[in-house]
């Protein structure tokens, strides 16, 4: 009758009630429930997750976890699978536990084919230990929140430790274009590897940007030679000394054409044939996310037609990129959290000449990364000549952002400092004319706060309703 031990059942009920309570009081706390339930029964996640009929898929990496896992969830859904997905982006062990508690019925029974779990890099070893993981997808590894994990190599080591604990025959989907990611799990020859990568010279960049992290071979330390670079350190590389090189992609993006700001045309090549799809998300970074999801979906047996349908309705995922009508104006919000992601966002926005007024909101809370040094690795210099006419900087570290823009060559007359997010939002909206778009680039906790503000004014749904 019950799927859970008595201890876990009680913990599960306590967790369920905490979720109800949080929703009822209007706090969207996504990890509190899991935290308390785990305290009452440390095995609760094991007991809930083992009910997934085809096991659990973990999506990890620095950038694109949320978008990639949402696209993959949609592809699996289109193929007729039922999927449990931690879609609010709570990707630490407490948040993951909450996602399982929220989904299971009151008797502790979970009815789903796949658990699809976005996992923070440092949580990977624990996630693999506690859940029956049958597939792991690694998007990329960039510098991000180094204050939390120390260094880039530590981040890779966490993922690698998780991968080493996988059961035999598990699927490992890796970004071939990211030298450090491609080398993950190299000690495990029994895993079923799928490499994804771009094979399309037309989208390559002229040179490496400052935020490129892994320009040197992890084996011997020599500088890679790149025959093409797509962004940051992602590209087709070879080490001239030890000949470590990009693995041949199993699933490749062979064509990419940006049709409009939010619409790209993709050509995807798999060992059983090619197909074309329309992706309703902006930028090269989202094409990577789409490719990653498509590669793993393909390996799991999802038909090309289901992949194409999912990409076509991708729209946008909570918080990463969203467009909210605010009265007769438009709010376009894109999360920024690390140099590589931010550079891609800037490149995409400037290419489309989006927005004459921007708000850039920087907090330094734990979830944002407490070290704001990363702002100096973002190439804000591109805003000096072109770009928005007015930039309102906001958040706890608004002044740091203002100084960054000043030294990037943005004239100080174009910069306004307003620490309070509510006032920055109002000032921004007052600057744009009816029908125009206000661009907002927040860090994570600024984004949560902004969504709350917009929701209070009745313009967007609260995030746990998404």
């Amino acid at each position: 009758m019950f799927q859970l031990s008595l201890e876990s059942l009680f913990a599960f009920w306590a967790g369920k009630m905490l979720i109800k309570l949080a929703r009822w009081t209007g706090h969207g706390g996504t990890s509190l429930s899991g935290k308390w339930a785990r305290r009452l029964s440390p095995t609760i996640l094991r007991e809930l997750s083992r009910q997934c009929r085809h096991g659990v898929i973990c999506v990890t990496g620095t950038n694109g976890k949320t978008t990639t896992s949402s696209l993959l969830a949609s592809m699996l859904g289109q193929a007729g699978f039922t999927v449990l997905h931690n879609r609010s982006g709570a990707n630490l062990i407490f948040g993951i536990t909450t996602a399982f508690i929220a989904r299971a019925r009151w008797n502790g029974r979970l009815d789903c084919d796949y658990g699809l779990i976005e996992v923070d890099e440092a949580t990977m070893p624990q996630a693999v230990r506690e859940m029956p993981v049958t597939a792991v997808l690694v998007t990329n590894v960039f510098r991000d929140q180094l204050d939390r994990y120390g260094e880039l190599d530590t981040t890779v080591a966490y993922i690698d430790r998780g991968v080493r604990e996988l059961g035999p025959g598990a699927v490992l989907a890796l970004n071939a274009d990211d030298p450090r990611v491609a080398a993950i799990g190299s000690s495990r020859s029994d895993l079923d590897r799928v490499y994804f990568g771009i094979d399309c010279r037309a989208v390559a960049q002229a040179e490496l940007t400052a935020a490129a992290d892994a320009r040197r071979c992890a084996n011997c330390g020599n500088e890679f030679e790149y025959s093409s670079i797509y962004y940051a350190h992602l590209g087709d590389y070879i080490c001239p000394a030890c000949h470590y090189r990009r693995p041949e992609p199993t699933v490749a993006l062979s064509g990419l054409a940006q049709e409009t700001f939010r619409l790209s045309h993709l050509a995807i090549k798999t060992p059983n044939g090619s197909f074309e799809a329309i992706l309703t998300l902006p930028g090269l970074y989202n094409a990577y996310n789409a490719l990653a999801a498509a590669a793993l979906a393909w390996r799991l047996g999802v038909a090309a037609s289901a992949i194409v349908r999912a990409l076509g309705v991708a729209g946008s995922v909570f918080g990463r990129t969203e467009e909210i009508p605010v009265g007769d104006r438009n709010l376009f919000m894109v999360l920024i959290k690390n140099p590589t992601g931010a550079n891609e966002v800037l490149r995409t926005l400037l290419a489309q000449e989006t927005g004459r007024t921007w708000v850039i909101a920087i907090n330094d809370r734990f979830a944002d990364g407490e070290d704001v040094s990363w702002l100096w690795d973002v190439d804000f210099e591109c805003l000096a000549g072109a770009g928005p006419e007015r930039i309102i900087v906001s958040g706890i570290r608004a002044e740091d952002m203002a100084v960054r823009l000043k030294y990037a060559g943005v004239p100080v007359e174009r910069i306004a400092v307003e620490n309070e997010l509510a006032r920055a939002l109002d000032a921004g909206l007052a600057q744009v004319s009816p029908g125009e778009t206000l661009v907002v680039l927040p860090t994570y906790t600024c984004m949560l706060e902004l969504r709350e503000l917009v929701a209070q004014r009745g313009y967007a749904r609260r995030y746990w309703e998404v």
Partner: protein
Amino acid sequence: MGYSLRICHLYPDLMNLYGDRGNVMVLRQRALWRGIGVEIINVSLGDRTDLAECDIIFVGGGQDKEQSLICHDFRMVKGSSLAEAIEADAAVLAICGGYQLLGQKYLTHTGEEMPGLGVIDVWTRGGTRRLIGNVVIQSDLDGSDQTLVGFENHSGQTFLGSGVRPLGRVISGNGNNGQDRTEGAVYRNTVGTYLHGSLLPKNPWLADWLLTQALQRKYGEVELAALDDELEESAHRAALRRAGSQ
């Protein structure tokens, strides 16, 4: 007569993990805004540029792997001309890994000893715990009582010998080793420190101190023109508040 400065950025490709390149951007802009010409030269592995010909030298922090990669090059290829520059009063700013490499030695926590350049009298021991967080220190480097704000992220603990004086006294955070309340080291016109942030954008007085030392060494008595530092000062104050509230 027009002034000009040659600024060397050492290992910009390898030792730039925590936005340390911001320091070079600030030195460059603050010179240009005053009509001082600037030449930036990037010097990396294998490059035999004569560092004694440079007016300002900057080296940032890197990951352990990158640091071990440059360690040999730093001592064998750059070592003699860098030491010559330092002894001849060039203005040098070395952060985190760069600071450690200028010292006598680095003892890893497994007991292995790696020699440093030995040009400043400090030594470092690898710790098991990372010291991470906002830092505020008090410094009298420019003769007045000033604060410096930054962000530290290091596992090495550095101890000062008698040949250097600390850059400042820790008001909040860990500093050199988390024990003796010192942060950074100063020897001639060379400043070593653990402060990222980036450091100079929020502490424009230190940027101006480095520019002043470099100009005076080259041209004799020089007074820097004042700049409007309202934004920089407000970022400095915001960081002070942030460190105080934690």
